[in-house]
């Protein structure tokens, strides 16, 4: 018996938690519980990110996803949390159809996961030799458009393809602006006068 390789154990732990709570989200009928499970699942996912050496992204995951997106969702839950919406029963036939389709999908995806040779595990010695490097600086530079890992790339064709993310970084801010204006517009309480066509339709 070989010595236990701790990162793998942690992987099992985190992936187990995130998968288990993902199933929890899926199977639970209670919206409040679902939100809670989702928080735990996403948080465990950030653990997976840390394990893969993506510490900054892991932190972002915790902050934006778990902190931000979920607060938003929970906010929504609270806004609509009347007794009758807490639990909604899904018709059994839908479950079965969903599980059949989902099972097929899962099967295809899992077999895909195992079918690329490059995706198999490294040797233990090889894996232990990998040195953790700081990711924040390269990430920050990458967002500014400078890929500091670019000179290290031996393959010239690949080096050309290493793009900086300045464009996305800038354009996404405009996108967020537009999206927030849109969301604010919809969420604004004031009801608008309807278009003429609406009157015929509004009677329904």
């Amino acid at each position, binding site marked *: 018996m070989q010595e236990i390789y701790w990162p793998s154990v942690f992987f099992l732990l985190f992936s187990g938690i995130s998968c288990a709570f993902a199933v929890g989200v899926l199977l639970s009928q209670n919206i409040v519980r679902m939100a809670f499970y989702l928080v735990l699942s996403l948080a465990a996912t950030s653990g997976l990110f840390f394990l893969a050496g993506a510490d900054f992204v892991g932190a972002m995951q915790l902050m934006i996803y778990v902190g931000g997106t979920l607060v938003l969702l929970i906010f929504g839950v609270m806004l609509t949390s009347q007794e009758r919406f807490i639990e909604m029963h899904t018709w059994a036939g839908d479950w079965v159809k969903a599980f059949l389709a989902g099972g097929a999908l899962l099967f295809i995806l899992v077999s895909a996961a195992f079918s690329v040779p490059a995706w198999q595990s490294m040797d233990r010695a090889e894996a232990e030799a990998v040195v953790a490097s700081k990711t924040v600086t390269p990430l920050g530079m990458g967002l500014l458009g400078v890929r500091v890992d670019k000179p290290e790339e031996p393959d010239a064709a690949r080096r050309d393809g290493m793009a900086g993310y300045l464009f996305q970084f800038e354009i996404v801010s405009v*996108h967020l602006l*537009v999206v927030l204006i849109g*969301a604010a517009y919809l969420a604004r309480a004031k009801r608008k006068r309807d278009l003429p066509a609406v009157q015929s339709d509004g009677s329904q």
Partner: protein
Amino acid sequence: MNLTSLIDSLLSDTLQTSLPLFGTELALCGTIVFMLLVRVLKGGQHVPPFLLAMTGAIIALWLALPREGIEAWADLGRQELFTGMLVHDTLTAYLRVFLLSFVVLFLVLAQLTGLADRDDGQDFFTLVLGATLGMCVMVSANHLLTIFLGVEMASVPSYVLVGIVKGRRRSSEAALKYAIYGAGAAGVMLYGISLLAGVLGSAHLPTMAHELAALDIPGQLAAGEGGSTVMVLALGGLMMGVGLAFKLSAVPFHFWCPDVFEGAPAEIGAFLSVASKAAALALLIRVGFGLGYLPEDPAPSLAATQPAAAISMVSTSQIPTSQVAYQSETASIDGSADDPLSPVRNFFVILVAIVAIVSCTFGNLAAYGQTNIKRMLAYSTIAHAGFMMMAVAAAVALIGRDVGHAETALSALLLYLSIYLFMNLGAFAIIAFLRNAMHSEDIKDYAGLIRSCPMTAVMMTMILVSLIGLPPLAGFWPKLRVLQSLYEAGGPLMITVLVAAGMNTAISLVYYLRVVKVMCIDPPSDTQEPPTLGFFSTAYILVVALPVLLFGIMPEKVAEWADLATKNLF
């Protein structure tokens, strides 16, 4: 290469290459921000938002127009912007002009129908411009993340636009369906993108094409091994295709389309059916050619000096056929016989061709029994998207052996899009004006329209006949050219597509003509007041619909632009 040189190259790339070619998008961004600022400023409420948005759109359009005349497109070449995130070539340039012309017309329509009143105008125009920005990103995407970003940027504001009439039940239902379906499709697409990037180790399309070529898929397939990696690639490509198919509303990912079109205001229907479709098709082209074609090293100087092979009927080119033959011969010689990317192309072509056939047929058949005109047009949109996808399939099938013919196929597609713009915008504009006048969108309420608004009825008839694709109206030419490209592509699959396309033209006759019959033959109902349209409305309809007739009689101009836009694309 050290850090300093990296930064230097970034600066020069950004300031000297990227930003000048990125003017249109910058203008859009600027307008969005400026509109927000104006609203915040004191007294800004009194500035009509329409003016701001219109000004911004016109500036953007002006920036998109070729400065040195349209012929300059021929030497535009291909340039990567922002270190490879975007690509700028004639396709980008053409589609930008296309999108922004549409947006200008669309803004006028929205103002005329009163969809954007003074209070909500700010939000509405911001959303429209934001979605347009996303579409501009889509047409020039060169990186998987840009693709996803573009799709999101175009979709998310559209979700809100669909539900722009807040108090309406159907509108909110449509928005919900669109948003959820879109989110699901985007999720699947992102997963596919992650798989592709994971297998190929890059997200930059040309690099991915290099990696694909290095994988030697034909060899692997021939040896019967390594098929598993290929299958993962196929899976990734397929899942990414789901996102594209959602944007294109291709069957079987079209479900949102009829519901959304019916629930949303007609103006938004025009926006989704024209601009969104065009951007999605451009993205499809980007993906298909980005991954399925690896341009030979700087060789194409010979081809660059020669006029592209073009189709005699619509094009202005006078090159003798022998020259075409010569060109195709050279192309087939240097377009190496066992191209490592041919399996990628085959996969793409088969997938697109099948989906195109199904979409086209399904759309046309399902349109039969519709009672709501917007819903009927939604199915018509699905069918037309299928037809346009056929052109993409033909182009990708052709690229392997003959660049010139592939460019012709693409030019057919661009022509289709341009003419489709006028047809669909016109149709939806008429629907919107009639809705304001008679408060109904049911086909049966259009009875007797020929008597109450003869001009509108005639224009609508013209548009519908053009949508069928009957000569001498404009809709005929692009269909003809698509069929021609399919024929040139040859092979059993393409011929099947050709037959399906031809049959669909016949099928579609019925439901379009039914509307015409209701308008022109059926007696008006007693309960319905005869509608009257204002001067501006009628004028707008005329402006939008007359090109359908004009381009039908004289298709050369648009066809020429489309040819120019695709010339030397590769």
